């Protein structure tokens, strides 16, 4: 007989109730989001009446997880960047050359003159010696420069491979060193990209490593992919250089070891500077937007101990002479050193707006990318387009649901009502699980939910049709209902497992919106099986126990 133990009934209702509780915040999306944002800020230690009021928009004892809206619904920028890891090889070889040259020069009487062969593959260093017969000796010397690879997987390998081709010695990074370098480069790039985007303070950006050498960046809300690229791409090179003189002629010969750079805000003014900086931005440990004593926007900075010492020594020795603060090949300002600055901190003033000083501080803090990024994919979706999509999706979902409900009730009467209740619970559960997982809802994801509505009733239909058949032969309605469930089960399982397989493959292979679709489709299948097998059944049993009908019509 149709008997469902009390504990199981309680469990089913508990799941439904839990679902309702966790899905609830999504009904008040805006309110909960603001409250969550305010709480996040309070968490960091800041708090004022306004924040408290915002936080109070949603009671703390209620679940506050929300379905994440995908970029196609919220608007934002999506970028896929490839880190140009080879650039690091070239830089390494560049740094290797003086070392190789000096080592070989020490043995000049044996190997002769050493010259570098330029213009080949930048990831290898080609050195020609004039005494070709001594190539083996030179090879030994250069090999002596190798150091073990600094990584866990390097396993005792050397960082460089050295081989000889006639009078040429060729140095390349070894396989193990390349792998280690690549990994380091990507992680560094990832970290810098993350810091730069975080600095701008946008909500929940996604910054992930993808595959070997790629970085996926998703920033909701920001205007365009172009803006994100600007934030990421700008390398702020800050240097402090001694000023030789000031001029208005851009073509003036600056003299050896000097360079000529334009002023940032004074048109037609150029500075001749010593090429070697006193301190560079790499020695910065902090930079913050601030205001100078006149209340104009400025940037406060602080050096690490090495930088602080160099800066301190220089200012002590050069009181009265000007020095230039250079940012990206432009002179921001060239103040005259008034006194010895020992603490390693200072302030950059210029004609900044508040926004510019903030941006500058961000750029200074984040440092330079270890290698260039090439953008393989860029997508910008305007927030209005996303909002339109949400509206359209909502409307379609409601109309679709209504159509399905009417159709089901017309066809199955009271049992159709049960199926409708199950369908409603199903929708609630989908949103609850999405919220708990913090999964992302995309536009195809909404389509997945609507599709689920259509398909979710399938399990009920299977059962009902089976009950109808069984009613013709079975003894009594109770037995028919029992048999209906029993016999429809294998079809329900087989049918849904196969759909689940495709959802799983979609999830694994797809990305972005498609993955969002796979998530809702997969979840929809699980919840619809749950509601069909447990919820509708429970509803039918409860109704049956109360009414004890002699005949039923399905």
């Amino acid at each position: 007989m149709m008997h469902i133990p009390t504990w199981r009934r309680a469990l089913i209702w508990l799941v439904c109730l839990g679902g309702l509780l966790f899905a609830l915040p999504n009904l008040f999306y805006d309110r909960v989001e603001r409250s969550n944002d305010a709480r996040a800020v309070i968490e960091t230690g800041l708090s004022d009446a306004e924040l408290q009021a915002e936080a109070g928009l949603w009671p703390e004892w209620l679940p506050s997880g929300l379905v994440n809206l995908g970029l196609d619904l919220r608007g934002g920028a999506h970028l896929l960047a490839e880190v140009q890891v080879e650039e690091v090889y070239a830089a390494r070889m560049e740094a290797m050359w003086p070392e190789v040259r000096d080592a070989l020069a020490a043995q000049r009487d044996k190997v002769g003159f050493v010259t570098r062969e330029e213009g080949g593959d930048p990831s290898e260093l080609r050195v020609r010696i004039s005494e070709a017969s001594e190539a083996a000796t030179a090879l030994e010397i250069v090999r002596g420069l190798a150091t073990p690879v600094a990584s866990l997987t390097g396993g005792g390998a050397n960082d460089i491979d050295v081989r000889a081709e006639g009078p040429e010695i060729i140095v390349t990074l070894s396989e193990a060193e390349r792998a280690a370098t690549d990994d380091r480069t990507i992680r560094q790039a990832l970290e810098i990209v993350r810091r730069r985007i975080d600095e701008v303070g946008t909500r929940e950006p996604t910054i992930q490593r993808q595959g070997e050498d790629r970085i996926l960046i998703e920033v909701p809300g920001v205007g365009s992919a172009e803006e994100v690229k600007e934030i990421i791409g700008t390398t702020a090179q800050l240097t402090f250089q001694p000023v030789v003189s000031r001029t208005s002629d851009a073509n003036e010969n600056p003299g050896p070891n000097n360079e000529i750079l334009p002023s940032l805000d004074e048109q037609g003014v150029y500075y001749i500077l010593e090429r070697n900086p006193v301190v560079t931005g790499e020695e910065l440990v902090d930079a913050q937007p601030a205001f100078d004593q006149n209340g104009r926007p400025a940037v406060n900075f602080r050096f690490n101990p090495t930088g602080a010492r160099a800066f301190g020594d220089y200012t002590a020795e050069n009181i009265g002479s000007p020095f230039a603060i250079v940012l990206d090949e432009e002179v921001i300002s060239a103040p005259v050193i008034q006194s010895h600055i020992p603490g390693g901190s200072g302030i950059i003033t210029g004609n900044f707006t508040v926004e510019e000083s903030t941006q500058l501080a961000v750029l200074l803090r984040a440092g330079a990318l270890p290698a260039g990024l090439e953008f393989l994919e860029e997508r910008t979706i305007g927030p209005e387009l996303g909002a339109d999509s949400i509206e359209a999706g909502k409307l379609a979902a409601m109309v679709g649901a209504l159509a399905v409900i009417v159709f089901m009730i017309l066809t199955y009467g009271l049992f159709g009502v049960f199926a409708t209740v199950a369908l409603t619970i199903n929708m609630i559960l989908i949103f609850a699980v999405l919220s708990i997982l913090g999964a992302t809802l995309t536009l195809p994801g909404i389509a997945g939910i609507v599709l689920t509505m259509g398909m979710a009733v399938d399990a009920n239909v299977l059962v009902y049709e089976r009950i109808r058949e069984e009613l013709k032969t079975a003894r009594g309605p109770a037995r028919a209902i029992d048999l209906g469930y029993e016999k429809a089960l294998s079809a329900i399982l087989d049918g849904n497992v196969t759909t689940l397989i495709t959802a799983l493959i979609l999830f694994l292979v797809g990305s972005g919106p498609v993955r969002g679709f796979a998530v809702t489709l997969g979840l929809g299948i699980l919840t619809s099986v749950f509601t069909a097998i447990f919820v509708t059944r429970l509803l039918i049993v409860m109704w049956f126990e109360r009414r004890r009908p002699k005949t039923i019509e399905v």
Partner: protein
Amino acid sequence: MRLRIVPDDTKIDFFRAAKITFGASVLAMVVSIIAALALGLNFGIDFQGGTTIRTESESAVDVGEYRNAIAPLGLGDVIITEVFDPSFGDDKNVASVRIQAQDGAESVSAETIAAVEAALQGVDPTVSFPSVESVGPKVSGELIQSAIFAVLGSLAAILFYIWLRFEWQFAVGAIAALVHDVTLTIGIFAAFQIKFDLAIIAALLTIVGYSINDTVVVFDRARENLRKYKTMPLRALLNLSANETLSRTVMTSGTTLLALLALLVLGGDVIRGFVFAIFWGVIVGTYSSIYVAKNIVLMLGVKRDWDKKDDPKAGTQFANIDA
């Protein structure tokens, strides 16, 4: 009074016109393949690389003027299509501008996009750009690969599962039905030159999932009947199974199509292609589970008696009924 789309006891002979329906299916598949080869698919930037810019303006879109404005930029192939949707008012005119992948560049440069936007704004100062998407050739190549892998992978996984749960003949029948559905969907996308992008692959996989669901329900009944009616000829038995499940097949397709119809009409133009693919797939999927999958099973025959393992010839005794 209940709504009954399918009468209670149908006795339709689904095999009576087997030659015609099966022939029609094969023909439709051939036509689809020819359409796909001859017309080609209208690949979106996901698979081809390039840039799509969505424009929105207050005055009507003049495709010719847009084209004239962009032509001097020398960007190669530019496709401009106006986008329609019932939800757009008179002051909302949308078009889609597609620019081919530029030589030597992975993604279109900011300057190019800015130039196109400026050119279009020259035509119509009210124009805005709600979305700009750009995919480089490297990624699009990989996306094609993973899409093919996804479709083949899911077919293989389903083949394996059905083979595990049913006899292999059912697995072959199911896969034949799936290939039929996927081919016909690709065919209609080629015929009408609807944009074929990553979302459509998701739609194809959904169709695969839906169609298999439908097929499995019929097969499940056939499996049950095979045990119940040990001597009924396979043809009659498959017919019986299809008739018994017909009501369910029509109901489920009906509710699914209703929900999809709402999405197709009201869901906005952004996902219309995607929804259309699924909508179409549900129709052909329903057809194929009745008219394709079973025919294959009938052609291959099924080993009937699971109990008598000692008689290997028993498996083929009903194999040649229709052949």
